[in-house]
C-alpha cells in the first residue's frame, strides 16, 4: 500500500540532499569539535561554517545562534534560562493558551516555582488579543512567549507587532517558530524578536536538533551543565552530523520558500474547499493568515481517532485534536481554547502538507474521505449541526449516565 503522508507538522521526510550532507560525519569526519587534533579542528570549522550559514539566513550574528538537541530543548532553554537569569527583575511571565507543550509545560513548571503566569485570550480563529497583551504587561513582567504559527490550527500571529509592544514595554519576547520555517519570514530583524526557536525535523532535516536564536545582550543561564560547548550555554559534545543536516535543511527550505509556498498553498486550498462542501464541517484557524501547509477541519458528530484509523487503513497519515488520541483523554488544548464546544475539538482532523505531496495524493484523499465521514456519521447517535455547535461556544462537559 502506498503511503500518503499528510502529517508534516509532526515531522517531515528527510530531503535526500540533507541526508547526503550528513553522511560523512558519521564515518569519516567523526571528530569531536573540542579535540585539539586535525579531526577536531575539521569538525570545529564545519560547525563554525554552519553557524555562519544559519546566522546569514536569520539575518543575525553567528554569536546569536545556539545549537541544541531539539525545538523543545530550545524552548526550555529560552524560558528557564531567561527567567532564572533575570528573576531579580520580576516574577511575571506571559504566554498564550495555544502554545506547544514545550512552552506550556515549562510555564506550568515555573508557576509551581512561584512565578506569576498570565495566559492571554485568543479569539475563535486563534489570534492573540494584543490589546490584552499591552494591558497585562506590568513592571514585574520579564518574559513573553508566543508561538509564531500554530502547529495544530496554522494561525499566524503578528510577530512584528508583538515585538513592538514588548520592546516599548521593555519585556523580552521569545517565539517558537518551528512550524513557520520554510513558509514564513524568519529574518529576526524583520520580526524584531529577542529569542526564537527552530528545529530540524519540520524542515526535511534531522530529528533531534534545533537552534535558539538569542539576541546579543539577552542573558540566559544554561539548563545543561558540562563541557561548556555552545558559548557555555549548552554543554554536551556537539552533534555535528545533525548540525550540518539542520543547516543544509534550513538553507534548502529558504532557497525554495516562495515556490514551495505557492505549490503547497494550492494543494491546501483544494483540500479545504473540498472538505467545506461536506455538511457540518468547520475550518479551525484563520482562512487567510494560516500556514500554507495546514488544514484543520472538524467533521461534527464523529470522533477524530476513528477517522484517523480509517484513513490509516488506506495508507493516509493524518492527526487529530481528539481526546482519544491523547494519553489523558482531554481534547486538544488549542482547539478547546478557541471558544468552541469540546465536540468540535473531538472531531478535528489535521492534514499537514509538505513539499513531497502531489496533487494526485490530494485528489485521492478528497475522493476517499467523504464516504468515511458518511459512514461514521451514520454510526453516530449525535445529530448536531455546526450552527448549533458554534452557537453553544465553550461549555464544560455535561454528563449523561454514570460514565467517567
Amino acid at each position, binding site marked *: 500500500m502506498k503511503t500518503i503522508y499528510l502529517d508534516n507538522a509532526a515531522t517531515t521526510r528527510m530531503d535526500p540532499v540533507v541526508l547526503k550532507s550528513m553522511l560523512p560525519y558519521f564515518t569519516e569526519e567523526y571528530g569531536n569539535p573540542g579535540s585539539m587534533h586535525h579531526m577536531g579542528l575539521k569538525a570545529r570549522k564545519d560547525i563554525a561554517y554552519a553557524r555562519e550559514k544559519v546566522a546569514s539566513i536569520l539575518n543575525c550574528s553567528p554569536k546569536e545562534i545556539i545549537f541544541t538537541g531539539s525545538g523543545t530543548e530550545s524552548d526550555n532553554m529560552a524560558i528557564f534560562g531567561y527567567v532564572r537569569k533575570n528573576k531579580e527583575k520580576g516574577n511575571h511571565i506571559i504566554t498564550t493558551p495555544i502554545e506547544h507543550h514545550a512552552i506550556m509545560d515549562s510555564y506550568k513548571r515555573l508557576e509551581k516555582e512561584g512565578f506569576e503566569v498570565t495566559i492571554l485570550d485568543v479569539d475563535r480563529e486563534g489570534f492573540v488579543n494584543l490589546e490584552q497583551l499591552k494591558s497585562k504587561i506590568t513592571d514585574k513582567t520579564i518574559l513573553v512567549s508566543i508561538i509564531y504559527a500554530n502547529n495544530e490550527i496554522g494561525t499566524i500571529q503578528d510577530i512584528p507587532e508583538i515585538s513592538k509592544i514588548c520592546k516599548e514595554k521593555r519585556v523580552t519576547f521569545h517565539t517558537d517558530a518551528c512550524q513557520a520555517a520554510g513558509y514564513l519570514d524568519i529574518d529576526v530583524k524583520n520580526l524584531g524578536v529577542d529569542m526564537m526557536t527552530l528545529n530540524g525535523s519540520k524542515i526535511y532535516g534531522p530529528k533531534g536538533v534545533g537552534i535558539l536564536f538569542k539576541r546579543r545582550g539577552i542573558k540566559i543561564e544554561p539548563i545543561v551543565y558540562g563541557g561548556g560547548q555552545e558559548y557555555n550555554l549548552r554543554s554536551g559534545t556537539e552533534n555535528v552530523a545533525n548540525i550540518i543536516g539542520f543547516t543544509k535543511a534550513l538553507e534548502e527550505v529558504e532557497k525554495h520558500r516562495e515556490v514551495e509556498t505557492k505549490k503547497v498553498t494550492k494543494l491546501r486550498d483544494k483540500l479545504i474547499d473540498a472538505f467545506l462542501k461536506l455538511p457540518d464541517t468547520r475550518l479551525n484557524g484563520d482562512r487567510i493568515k494560516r500556514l500554507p501547509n495546514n488544514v484543520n477541519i472538524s467533521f461534527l458528530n464523529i*470522533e477524530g481517532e476513528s477517522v484517523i484509523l480509517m484513513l490509516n487503513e488506506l495508507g493516509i497519515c493524518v492527526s487529530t485534536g481528539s481526546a482519544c488520541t491523547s494519553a489523558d483523554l482531554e481534547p486538544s488544548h488549542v482547539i478547546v481554547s478557541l471558544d468552541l464546544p469540546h465536540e468540535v475539538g473531538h472531531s478535528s482532523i489535521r492534514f499537514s502538507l509538505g513539499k513531497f505531496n502531489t496533487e494526485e495524493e490530494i485528489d485521492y484523499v478528497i475522493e476517499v474521505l467523504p464516504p468515511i465521514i458518511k459512514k461514521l456519521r451514520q454510526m453516530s*447517535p*449525535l445529530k448536531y449541526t455546526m450552527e448549533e455547535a458554534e452557537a453553544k461556544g465553550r461549555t464544560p462537559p455535561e454528563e449523561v449516565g454514570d460514565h*467517567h
Partner: protein
Amino acid sequence: MADIIRKKQKGTDKVWFYTSTVKDHFINPKNIVLDDKIVEDMHPNGEGEVGSPACGDVMKFWIRVENGKIKKCLWKTFGCASAIASTSMLSVMVTENGGMTLEEAQKISPKEIMDRLGGLPPVKVHCSVLGDQALRQAIKDYKSKQQNKNVPLT
C-alpha cells in the same frame, strides 16, 4: 492554567497497539446501526444511552429481550476505535449461543470484553466501559418497562 495542562501518562510507547481483532471489529462493527430503520424493525424493548459529546463519547444501545434472553441488540456510537470495537464485541457476546440472560449480561465486565478482543492499549481501557454501561442502562430500561406493564391501570 491547571485546566489546560495535560496529565502525562507514563509508558506511552505502548499506547497505540491494537490487536487484529480490535481492528476487525473497528472496520466492520457487528450489530451497528447505519440506518435508523433497522432499530424500528427490531422492535426493541429496552434502550440505554451513556456518555456525553463534550467528553468525546456517546453510546446508545437497544435490546430485544424474549423469554428472559437478549435475542437481538443494536448500537450507535460517537466514540473512538476502542469504543467501537469493544461495543461490537459486546454485542456479539450478549447475543451468541441463543442470547444471554439478563443476569448474565449484567455481569459482563470490561475485562471479559477486552480478553475477547485480545487486549486494549492501557489508556483506552476507559473506552471499553461505555458499551457495557449502555447495555446495563438498556436492561434497566427493559425491566422498568416490564414492571410498568405489570402495574394494573386503575
